[in-house]
């Protein structure tokens, strides 16, 4: 479903962010990417939906090349949901308006239809009573669940999560992870950048460890945690699994 082929990305001549990354993600799989900050995890995620332009290699999503000039990138993105570390809800819109904007504009749904669907999704993420509130009136966990609902409203085939719990207070992390675990259970194809190793252990089909723009190690949850092959991976794990 997602094929990443030898992708390299430079921010400028002397600053290489991604170095020859290759990876294939099957339909229905959840892949977790971890690694120290600055290792290129988030950049890789942004390459998948064309928010970042890479100089070398290719990424094929659902049989469509992301950087092919003939690709309708807006249509491609509308089928890939994305959730950000800092939520990025639109502060001038209610939760409901945040969720229905893209269905109204991109899918040309009627207002009725879009709002009905939005309420269904808000119920699914457990906060239907917050529909008419503005982001400033919501807690961090609620904001992130609205952000997930906004992505789901487009009925995407793939969900990308960029450190979805890193900006949350500890007691709110679980409510967001629970929603993500449900999604994974329903067979959503997910790529998740996170340091939540409990989540990774529970739902990841594959865990990737990145450092300095390279893919250092990948493996199933069991192998990754119990028999890490690479010294850097061992160091990293020992530091975050206290």
């Amino acid at each position, binding site marked *: 479903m997602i094929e990443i082929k030898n992708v390299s990305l430079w921010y400028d001549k002397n600053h290489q962010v991604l170095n020859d990354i290759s990876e294939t993600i099957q339909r229905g799989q959840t892949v977790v990417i971890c690694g120290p900050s600055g290792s290129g995890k988030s950049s890789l995620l942004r390459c998948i939906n064309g928010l970042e332009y890479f100089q070398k290699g290719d990424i094929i999503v659902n049989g469509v090349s992301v950087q092919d000039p003939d690709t309708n990138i*807006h249509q491609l993105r509308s089928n890939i*949901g994305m959730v*950000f570390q800092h939520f*990025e809800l639109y502060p001038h819109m209610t939760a409901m308006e945040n969720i229905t*904007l893209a269905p109204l504009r*991109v899918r040309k749904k009627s207002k009725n239809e879009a709002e009905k669907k939005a309420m269904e999704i808000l119920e699914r993420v457990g906060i239907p009573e917050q529909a008419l509130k503005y982001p400033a009136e919501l807690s961090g966990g609620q904001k992130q669940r609205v952000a997930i609902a*906004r992505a789901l409203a487009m009925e995407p085939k793939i969900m990308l999560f960029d450190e979805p719990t890193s900006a949350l207070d500890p007691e709110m992390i679980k409510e967001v992870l629970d929603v993500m675990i449900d999604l994974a259970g329903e067979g959503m194809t997910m790529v998740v950048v996170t340091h939540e190793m409990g989540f990774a252990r529970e739902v990841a089909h594959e865990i990737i460890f990145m450092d300095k723009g390279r893919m250092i190690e990948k493996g199933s949850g069991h192998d990754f945690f119990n028999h890490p092959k690479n010294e850097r991976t061992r160091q990293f794990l020992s530091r975050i699994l206290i």
Partner: protein
Amino acid sequence: MDMDVIARNLHFMLGGLVLTFELAIITLAGGFLVGLILAMGRLSSRAWLYYPATCYVHFFRGLPLILVIFWLYFLSPVVTGRSLEAFYAAIIAFVVFEGAYFAEIIRAGIQSIPKGQAMAAYSTGLTPFQCTRDVILPQALRNMTPALVTQAVIIFQDTSLAYVIGLREFLRRVNLVDAREARSVELYLFAGLLYFTFCSAGSLLSQRLENRRQRNRV
């Protein structure tokens, strides 16, 4: 002091305020529109949009307004072969000139919105146009309201320059009364008081909006 001179000519002078406001409001609307288009150009990654818009802004910000008014009024007949009515010459000069200032206010307002907002919008499949209209501009407008009100106050003051091509706006009428009555002190104090009242009302409004914006920060 002869305050009677003001009372005697009040009706005539205040009549000029109508024209003053007319000039200011049309300039505000037109200048904002021109500024919006220029700001989009200034923020574009396409060279053929960026460079003309940038040159335009730098060009007009480097000229005194009075010169632009003269150009429009005295040079446009040479170019087009027809003379331009003073009112239209003034309006075009104001809009063209103030557009450059609005462009910079709007550009700064748009750039004050975090990049993540556009990323979030794009990630749901919105086009750049939809993203700008629905997500970026409404927030940017709210952020730049104080600067816009300040610019409106400046425009209100700038309209007095229209007198150089013979438009009988407020200040020109005061000037005419003075020519007849020879009461400069009273008349110009009165004119100052009037400008001051309107402009400080505007500045106060701008201050209020600024405070409210600070409070509503997310």
